[in-house]
């Protein structure tokens, strides 16, 4: 079937992509990954079938892995460049990675609904139904199946869970973030507000030459860049003493502390949200 679609494959003749298609299908996957990928594909596809209200028996003798492979190879490339492929190509070129690094990464981690796409296609093949997304009366969107009749309609339900969630106590980390901000200000011998602004601007890639930034710092361009250099070095030293400094949660809290130290006017100019 692959040759049938080769004529409109924009990547035809590209050895790298040919290899990618091979190793990202279960059949072409390297032995050390093949078993894991097979299990992932089968389970994910059966789970999707179940969510769609189709029991495993209805799949009959169809092999989900074979379907996955066929789908992947047939529809893996199109006339239009696929974003995920572009991402992989960029990372491979940027970091000189091996194509095999992305084995199994496509299935989980892409977030682009590949498994769901495959399952919906599979159901269409199995049942002859056509998936369609509609908005229900409660405002939520559901997948419905044309040609399926009244029975067997399946809907993707929102998770049912108690409303109250027990959140992690962030107070110690917030105190640590505030402490880091104070310590960096002391170490860099700069006002706390300036340090907060520089850290916020750096984390959000805001140019220091923005008038509002220079105005708030009360410095020229070269002074601002020199101060940022000093602040970032001080921050690097201070973060060595904080246990969870490398976690995204601490990064968020530190940026939040920085944003909190900015004046209301500056927050508005920078677009800092509540």
């Amino acid at each position, binding site marked *: 079937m692959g040759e049938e679609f080769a004529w409109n494959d924009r990547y035809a003749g590209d050895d790298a992509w040919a290899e990618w298609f091979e190793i990202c299908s279960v059949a072409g996957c390297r032995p050390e990954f093949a078993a894991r990928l097979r299990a992932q594909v089968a*389970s994910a596809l059966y789970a999707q079938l179940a*969510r769609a209200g189709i029991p495993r028996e209805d799949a009959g003798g169809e092999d989900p892995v074979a379907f996955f492979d066929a789908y992947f190879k047939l529809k893996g490339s199109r006339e239009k460049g696929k974003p995920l492929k572009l991402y992989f190509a960029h990372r491979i070129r940027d970091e000189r990675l091996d194509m095999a690094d992305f084995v199994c990464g496509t299935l989980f981690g892409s977030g682009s609904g590949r498994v769901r796409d495959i399952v919906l296609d599979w159901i269409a093949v199995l049942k002859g139904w056509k998936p369609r997304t509609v908005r229900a009366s409660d405002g939520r969107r559901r*997948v419905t199946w044309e040609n399926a009749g009244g029975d067997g309609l399946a809907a993707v339900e929102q998770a049912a869970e108690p409303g109250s969630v027990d959140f*992690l106590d962030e107070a110690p980390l917030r105190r640590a973030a505030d402490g880091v901000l104070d310590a960096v200000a002391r170490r860099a011998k700069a006002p706390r507000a300036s340090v907060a602004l520089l850290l916020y601007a750096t984390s959000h*890639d805001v140019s220091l030459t923005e008038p509002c930034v220079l105005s708030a710092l009360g410095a020229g361009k070269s002074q601002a860049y020199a101060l940022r250099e000093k602040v970032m070095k001080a921050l*690097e030293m201070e973060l060595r003493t904080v246990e969870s400094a490398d976690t*995204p949660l601490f990064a968020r809290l530190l940026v939040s502390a920085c944003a909190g130290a900015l004046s209301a006017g500056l927050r508005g100019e*920078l677009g800092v949200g509540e």
Partner: protein
Amino acid sequence: MNAAFLAQWQIYRRGAPRAALSGLVSGTDSAFDADVAPGEIRVFADTNRPLVALVVEDRGLSGWRIVPVSPFCAPASVRELVVGERVFQLWNATVVSRRFAVRGWRVDALSADALAEVRGGIAAANPGRLTAGDGVQARYEREFLVGEGTLVPFAAPRAADLPRFAWLPTALKVAASVVLCLAAWCVLTMDSGRRLVRDWRDGFRGVRVGREDAVIELVDARDAPDEPEEPREVDIDFLQPAASWFGRGAGPAVSRPPRFADVRGPRIPEGIAKIHPNLAGAGYKSPAEAPMDVVFLSPAAPRADGAAPAKGGAPSYASGARPLAAAPKVSCRIGRDGLSGLCADGVLVVEGEAAEGAKATVTFDPGVIAGYRSRGVSWTLDGRRFSATYALAALPGRESEIGPASVLVTLIWPAKGGDERTPLVPVPAPSP
């Protein structure tokens, strides 16, 4: 918890541990979909794992607010929202920088209604807050929480967070240690290695120079980068024992024996220096450089028998001297510099009666005496009685040790069977 999510989560956890999703410093450029607009679902280039997210809102200079798309096909909790084919992690909503958002590709777009639905649900989901505990929900949220801005972490990831490569730093250290040990073993066991060590050891040599170059310094013979040729070892006969020259190129030409370094004598009191300006420290010899002094015990005088006259201080004194029948009578005494006006730490006086041709050698212990100088020899009118005086300067702190043990006086005179010597002229201990 949603059963479908739990099933997929268990499958996901069966795989090898993966590094947390984080931003990367922008590298090369690609054909990005540069125009960002709210409602777009984009995959971003500068992350270590694919991050697909919905662009929700323009935040001006701060960037764009995004809501990541779950990699799973079912929502994990009420803090996630299913819209169309995708599950949006409302709890993971964050603001990314404009540059980060631009460097990506458009995947899909939501309708205005769907976008409004997502926007409306964000606040209630408490974005940025994580579920407490160690359950599946908490672990899932910790695993997929993204940072803010460029998503590049401020701090370097700790080793515990990089399970795949946690062994790498240790392995590198071990490998480096092994390589260093092997290199050291090779250097120390090979002939060139021994020579290298020897050259290094001998590269530092004390050099004593004359007064006009009166700087004593350590010379590192290895520091001669301007001359690329191989170092050569050249023997130079300064004096016995021979000294060796280690360095690049030929050694310096030697046309005269090296001069002895002057030794700084005792400090002369200002009052005495005014009266006797010639005392000002000059003339001291180091016993290490000139271990012995010779005193001729009789003045030079023309002789009737034709023998060559002995000249004071000249080595040809005994060429024609007649043998002596008896040994010279010599005595020594050593004492402090009291009223002598020599301004020395000690004074050695050798005196006695001797016929022509006799001499005395005076040797000093260089461990005690830093320098000595002769204050001259005087003879009586008959030419037989003499007196020689030496001013002695002690090494700092060893003035009290100047005594019989630090001075050796030997007599030599011509006899019929050849020169005779007395092994020692006793030097009495100084009187207190």
